[in-house]
């Protein structure tokens, strides 16, 4: 808890610095693409957002699973705090992907395996959030939604490998692939900076949200104790 208090503002500053440098390099300091021209710059938001959508879901499922199996209350708080952030990243990836798809592919949306599985991920986030708050007893909500989160985990490898297993309109992976990245270093650097910025942003907001939630639950417990004392 002490450590989190120290680290949190640093994460915030790190996000600002990484995002500033990444956006500057991405939008001004990097070359256009030989095929796509200037439109390629959507990549510097789209790829980190999609990456974090998968990362957050994995984090969500793991912490929900720890909360379910070992009954660890902080893990449950972490899972609940991660879900809306991940949902936003997923939405951002879908939105920027659509804006990118229109000029490059000639369509806003197609039902290919990558795009569809990504949409399913977005609905999994929404389903988790809905189920989590659907019960009067927050513990039952946490357990029911944890099961959904674990079942939905199967979608993560499906998204990742969808472009290899099936013919899709979406192109195959450019960074994590056999034979190294197929992105020119001049474009890879700003991309990595943006991925770093999105990651620190997630950790920063996660810390803020968890602290808020833990403080709120402590406040509730104290109020309950006070009420009981007053009643006696």
């Amino acid at each position: 808890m002490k450590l989190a208090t120290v680290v949190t503002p640093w994460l915030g500053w790190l996000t600002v610095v990484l995002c500033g440098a990444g956006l500057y390099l991405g939008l001004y300091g990097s070359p256009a693409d030989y095929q796509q021209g200037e439109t390629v710059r959507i990549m510097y938001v789209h790829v980190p957002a999609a990456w974090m959508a998968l990362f957050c879901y994995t984090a969500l499922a793991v912490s929900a699973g720890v909360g379910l199996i070992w009954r660890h209350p902080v893990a449950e708080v972490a899972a609940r705090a991660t879900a809306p952030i991940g949902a936003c990243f997923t939405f951002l990836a879908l939105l920027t992907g659509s804006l990118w798809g229109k000029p490059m592919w000639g369509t806003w949306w197609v039902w290919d395996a990558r795009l569809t599985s990504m949409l399913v991920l977005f609905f999994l986030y929404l389903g988790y959030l809905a189920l989590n708050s659907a019960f009067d007893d927050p513990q039952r909500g946490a357990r029911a939604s944890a099961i959904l989160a674990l079942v939905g985990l199967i979608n993560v490898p499906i998204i990742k490998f969808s472009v290899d297993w099936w013919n899709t309109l979406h192109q195959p992976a450019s960074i994590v692939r056999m034979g190294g990245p197929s992105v020119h270093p001049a474009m890879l650097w700003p991309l990595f900076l943006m991925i770093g910025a999105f990651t620190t942003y997630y950790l920063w907001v996660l810390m803020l949200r968890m602290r808020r939630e833990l403080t709120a639950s402590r406040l509730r417990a104290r109020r309950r104790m006070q009420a009981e004392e007053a009643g006696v």
Partner: protein
Amino acid sequence: MKRKHKRLTFAAVGLALVGVAAALALSAFEESIVFFHSPTDVAEGKVEMDRRIRLGGLVEAGSVQKQADAVTGFRITDGAHAIAVTYQGILPDLFREGQGVVTEGRLRGATFVAEEVLAKHDETYMPPEVADALKKSGRWQEEAGKGAAKTGGPGK
């Protein structure tokens, strides 16, 4: 302690079962998950031809012909087989010879009449100068097709 282990076992077994179920379902629906078919699939008769299908591959070099009324004729190839395609309308910016495309339409006789043409782009990103330099030095590989022209159609 005991219950904790029980829950862990339940979760592990449950996840494994979900994984198996998903794998079975996905391999059963493989045909409908595939976004497009290659000319080889069509030539080998793997595709039902009496309904709208998507045909994907590379635009064969030297095959693009502009005709009257914004009609474009070209051939889609996957290296093994090629199919003649006609399309009336505006083509996407990335459409060019050697580029991966996905077209949607019907086969009429030997010609595929497309109602929609989508361009695929590959997973390679580089500045134009680098692409030119690679082409000059002869180390250029036409990677554009790799994704679109995976011959043999769907599968691993």
